[in-house]
């Protein structure tokens, strides 16, 4: 029983990470109605920037917030410069560009910071009073950070007019223009926010899995699965989806199949769920009249 609980808690801890990546994906989706396949690589690149700052002697939280700010700007610029020219192009053209961005960011991480695995500090000391038998201080700390981000996003989307405008611009850009929303800038804002969240996720992941250019590849997939499971338009659902995926992955790996096939089986189970509930577990059903 003890071992089983341990697997669950360990899964939850991983799930927090998947949840934050899922959150970033949902963020971009809410703003742009696109899934950004380059999200993971951008997050890794941000984490490398933080690492470089800490190596240069910056205090952790200074580097943290600076990286988040720079990532926000970076995401905004990527949208304004790279994506704006193809705003009107078909969805799949955008998908190919995302794949291109993925390759470029991945290569940049490798070129600027080389491929040796690096360790990344955690701001939550190991022997803190928070640590317990089931959760390390870092895992609890990460959960706390994620909670803060989540609450902030929820408040932003639900209660601010900019949040509402972003959602409107993503759903119906033509009508959004007719109420005076600068749709193009809303897209940029969405990308900036997503990049910032991705940076946070990366900096929370790195102490656990160590930092290298391919750090986020598998995590992105789990994050994507978590986002879909929770409903692609629901930030809270995304986080819960991420937690579920984390637990599922762990349980499958420990009790059902070895490590190689657990990725596949986890995905199959998720796909199965989606065929039963195509909008995700918490997604809102959008009614369209013919």
């Amino acid at each position, binding site marked *: 029983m003890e071992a089983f609980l341990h697997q669950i808690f360990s899964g939850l801890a991983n799930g927090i990470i998947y949840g934050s990546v899922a959150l970033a994906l949902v963020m971009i989706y809410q703003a742009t109605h696109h899934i950004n396949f380059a999200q993971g690589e951008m997050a890794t690149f941000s984490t490398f920037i933080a690492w470089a700052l800490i190596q240069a002697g910056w205090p952790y939280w200074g580097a943290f917030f600076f990286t988040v700010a720079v990532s926000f700007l970076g995401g905004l610029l990527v949208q304004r410069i790279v994506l704006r020219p193809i705003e009107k192009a078909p969805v799949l053209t955008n998908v190919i560009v995302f794949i*291109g961005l993925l390759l470029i960011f991945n290569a940049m991480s490798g070129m600027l910071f080389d491929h040796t695995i690096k360790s990344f500090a955690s701001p939550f000391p190991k022997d803190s009073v928070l640590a317990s038998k089931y959760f390390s201080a870092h895992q609890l700390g990460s959960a706390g950070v994620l909670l803060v981000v989540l609450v902030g996003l929820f408040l932003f989307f639900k209660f601010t007019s900019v949040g509402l405008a972003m959602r409107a611009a993503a759903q119906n850009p033509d009508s959004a223009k007719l109420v005076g929303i600068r749709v193009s800038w809303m897209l940029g804002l969405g990308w900036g926010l997503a990049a910032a969240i991705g940076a946070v996720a990366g900096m929370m992941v790195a102490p656990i899995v160590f930092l290298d250019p391919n750090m986020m590849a598998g995590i992105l997939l789990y994050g994507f699965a978590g986002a879909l499971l929770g409903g692609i338009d629901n930030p809270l659902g995304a986080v819960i989806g991420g937690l579920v995926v984390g637990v599922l992955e762990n349980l499958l790996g420990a009790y059902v199949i070895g490590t190689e096939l657990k990725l596949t089986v986890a995905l199959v189970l998720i796909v199965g769920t989606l065929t039963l509930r195509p909008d995700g577990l918490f997604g809102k059903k959008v009614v369209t009249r013919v």
Partner: protein
Amino acid sequence: MKPLDRKWVWFWSVLLLVGLLVLPFLVKNYRVFQFNLVLVYAIAILGLNILTGFNGQISLGHGAFYAFGAYTAAILMDKLGVPYWATLPAAFVVCFCFGFLVGFPALRLAGHYLALATFALALAVPQLLKYKGIEGMTGGVQGLVLTKPEPPFSFRFLDQPLSADRWLYFFSLAVAGLMFLLAWNLLRGRVGRALIAVRDHPIAATAMGINLPVFKSMTFGVSAGITGLAGALGAIVVAFVSPDSFTVNLSIFLLVGVVVGGLASIPGAIFGGIFIQFVPNIADEISKSAPAAIYGLLLIGFMYLLPMGVMGGVYKFWMRMRTKTAG
């Protein structure tokens, strides 16, 4: 079309055909091998385009069908001694059934949900192929080594022999030609219109009597079958199959090929095949240290230049020429 135009079309077509037939004798064997792969990929891309371009169902997992086709051919040739040309229809049938089955759960998914599901399929395939239980058939991690078929007769042209690669070139050319002809025939009739109707307005299509579930699953099946056939041909051309030859990258490359060539375009598949075969090599030559970054830049640049793919650009150019002469 004016009679004069038709003469020009015939002239250029014949010239093109002659050029294609002579081509393998003008270049070295390795180049011919690369051309063969272009043809193989073109067929695979054609298959995917039917599903994604014409019918709007996104698949990030067509590499799976390619792999299954390849392994079907390999196992038939290696373990059962089936002649290479017979493996192609076999692969089509196997992958058609498989695709049809995959098509059913796909009915409830759309857009990114379908993308994820098919992506999961693509990820699963190398793992499944390595599974120890079926190692006897699949050759496990090492895969299966096949023998390239010898040409049925020998001759020399322009001082070059009809090598195995050159023979396979003509074989692949014939197969590709046949597949493109079949696809063109299929798509320009009722089926083609139905595909596009389902893509653009599923509700209206249903109201007009198209049985949506069966139709979409059939589309999946045909698409998978064609890509599977390409996989079988690929196995023959490369003379080797292994689980790691069919990673997710293949599925992504096929999708790139579809978009680069032009969605819902049959001739576009050829340009897609050329792109995914040769552009990675070009990227490699430009930068040894970060070829992926160059490839990414080339991808993005290509999308800026031709957001509707090569055929989209050709169409736009033609339209501009026509309005110029008309005005």
